[in-house]
């Protein structure tokens, strides 16, 4: 990370350029890191839901309802990361 910061500073013509470049790089990291956690969470959630549906097919409707809400809640974390990204990058 420090090496990347030094690289940015070396390539930037002015401190303002360096600041903008660092903000863009940080925004990219923020978005990428924010997407990893929900990805793992959704994978785990859907995997467990499939297990539950296989064990108890008669409860599949209830499991799918809960799974859909779980996916949506988990995705909210990624959306928060995305909003931080657009505010850092474009605002």
């Amino acid at each position, binding site marked *: 990370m420090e090496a990347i910061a030094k690289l940015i500073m070396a390539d930037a013509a002015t401190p303002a350029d360096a600041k903008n470049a660092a903000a863009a790089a940080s925004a990219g990291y923020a978005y990428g890191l924010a997407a990893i956690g929900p990805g793992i969470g959704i994978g785990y959630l859907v995997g467990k839901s499939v297990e539950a*549906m296989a064990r108890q097919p*008669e409860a599949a409707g*209830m499991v*799918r309802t809960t799974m*859909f*809400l779980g996916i*949506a809640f988990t*995705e909210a974390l990624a*959306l928060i990361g995305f909003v931080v990204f657009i505010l850092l990058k*474009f605002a």
Partner: protein
Amino acid sequence: MKKYVLRRPGGPLVNEKLSPLAMAAQGQAPEVTVSKDIIRRGLIAAPIVMLVSGVIWGLTGAWSAGIGLALVLLNFGLAALLISWAAPISLALMMGVSLFGYLLRLGLISLAVYLVRDASWISLPALGVTIIVSHLGLLFWEMRFIAASLAFPGLRPNA
């Protein structure tokens, strides 16, 4: 070779060697019902969200809130459609569609925001706040009814 089958009390025959991923979900798609409920409530709340955003950020805020809410509702609708399409085919496909659908939907939201980011009628803080607040708000609103209907299936409350 002897083939082992299991029978649950009162249930169908279950092959012991059948992978859960080879099974498919049967019956109606609850995601579509949930998603329709969320979209209906989102459309009801849209004027209020746009008004509040307009008061805080002005006319650009109102337009941005509308775009943000539309993105959230499309996201819910697309998620429900993808899962309800894949689940009756196989649970393995449903897993794949859930994960790659997540990436696809994030990509679509990013693309939509990227396309409108420089428009003069867009306020990015208003758009971002609307996306987060409306996504979580609509989910909590829906969850209130889902929780009640799961606990008391015969007594689904009115919206």
